[in-house]
């Protein structure tokens, strides 16, 4: 598997695949196959793909640890940048097709609707991550600080799922939200366990020993 992942064609192939959703959505706009409310369908479609790419990005490290496919790491940056790409398009589609680029209305809407505020915050938090995604930024920041900054993605994951949950709350329609929440829960839960689990259990153990 590592050999496949290290093949020169892997990155370009992933790049083309990752452009598939936007290609499909652009096609659907032209073909008018997005249904009676194309603006809504497009905005929601871009939101779905943002969340999917976020899950894929966050899946890289756990998958690497579970399977030993360490070469997955070289795909992580591209997946993260595609998350940012779809998040940006999602936000742009909202400001354009839903709000007609009327910034006063957008500002009012962000304050009025908690789920818009949460989504906007998540999108904004992705900006510093995308801006420091190149090798030079890692050098300049230092690996430790860079890593600390990029833990922001965990906050983004929480905000993104809250955004989706609130969007669906009006109709008590939580099935799909539950799937994404479970996936993100496993991916983040695994990290939490790795970071705190053993230490936490050791502490528990020594506490018991002291009786």
């Amino acid at each position, binding site marked *: 598997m590592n050999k496949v992942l290290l093949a020169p064609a892997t990155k370009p192939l992933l790049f083309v695949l990752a452009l*598939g959703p936007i290609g*499909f959505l652009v096609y659907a706009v032209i073909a008018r196959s997005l249904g*009676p409310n*194309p603006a809504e369908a497009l905005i929601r479609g871009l939101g779905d793909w943002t969340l999917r790419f976020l899950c894929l990005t966050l899946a890289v490290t756990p998958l690497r640890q579970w399977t030993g496919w360490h070469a997955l790491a070289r795909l992580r940056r591209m997946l993260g940048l595609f998350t940012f790409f779809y998040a940006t398009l999602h936000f742009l589609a909202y400001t354009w097709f*839903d709000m007609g680029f009327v910034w006063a209305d957008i500002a009012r809407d962000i304050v*009025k609707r908690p789920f818009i505020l949460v989504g906007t915050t998540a999108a904004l938090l992705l900006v510093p991550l995308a801006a420091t995604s190149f090798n030079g930024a890692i050098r300049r920041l230092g690996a430790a600080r860079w890593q600390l900054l990029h833990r922001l993605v965990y906050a983004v994951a929480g905000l993104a799922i809250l955004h989706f949950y609130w969007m669906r709350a*009006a*109709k008590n329609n939580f099935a799909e939200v539950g799937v994404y929440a479970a996936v993100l829960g496993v991916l983040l839960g695994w990290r939490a366990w790795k970071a705190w689990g053993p230490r936490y259990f050791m502490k528990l153990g020594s506490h018991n020993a002291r009786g």
Partner: protein
Amino acid sequence: MLLPKDRSFVHPIASEITPRAVFEARRSWTRQMAALAVGLAAPGVLTGKASAQASMSGRQASPLPGTRSTLAGAVTLEKPTPLQDISTYNNYYEFGTDKSDPAQQAHTLRTRPWTVTIEGEVRKPGVLGIDELLKLGAMEERIYRLRCVEGWSMVIPWVGYSLAELIRRVEPTGNAKFVQFVTLADPAQMPGLRSSVLDWPYSEGLRLDEAMHPLTMLAFGVYGQVLPNQNGAPVRLVVPWKYGFKSAKSIVKIRFVDQQPRTSWELAAAQEYGFYSNVNPKVDHPRWSQATERRIGEGDLFTKKRATLMFNGYEAQVGSLYAGMDLKKFF
């Protein structure tokens, strides 16, 4: 009237209707062009969707013509929303909460035999069969704006008559102050009832004077055809100056009462959905603005939203019903 009789069977803005064959050909042409443009990116996915659309538009409905209404405000000159959009973008939670659910699920609804029970503060209570109801008033075609509380709107050529005709027939007593509309809730026909999103059966209400207003109609058809199930067949309420959820679908009971009835949406979220729910751009929903609306089927992705009108543009006809009322308080 100077209009010749057969005008009643002609669609209101005949020149604007694109024949089905033409628009379907146009759609398949656009689809082909788009396929060429995007190339081989995602061929399989799209063919499925196109065939689903084709099968939906192939549905045959029985004709139900109506004479063009002469009532003030009853025929807007705005372009009617295509039937395809009217019948595939629905809020009818008994068939699922997604907009596309009702069109896919409502085929299980049995609209015959159908009865509507009239009860409460009336001198002539009873049970009316759907055929009796269909003959009770002269069928009129009325082209109303419909504004959903979610922020989208349509223009719909309904077929039916004023609810007032039925109300006069059943003779409300002096105690009748409100009218309650109870709709069908049969789990065998309606898969959405498994969801606890609302308290079933769906129930709505109007003040008696609102119910008696000539613009308030009982609708049996749309576009000169019997209502598609997902649009509330076989008989529904249409109150054009209120948010769409006030216009109860598939009615089985009309009750005349002396107290303001609790509606399903009030029971679900009283602070968000008031009894009146008149369309009002100045009174926001607690969670979103009501100042603008997206007109379904109008233009394309780049078409701007339009400003929402007071009482959905029916202020001249219905404004006097609410004279002196604080519309922020009685939202």
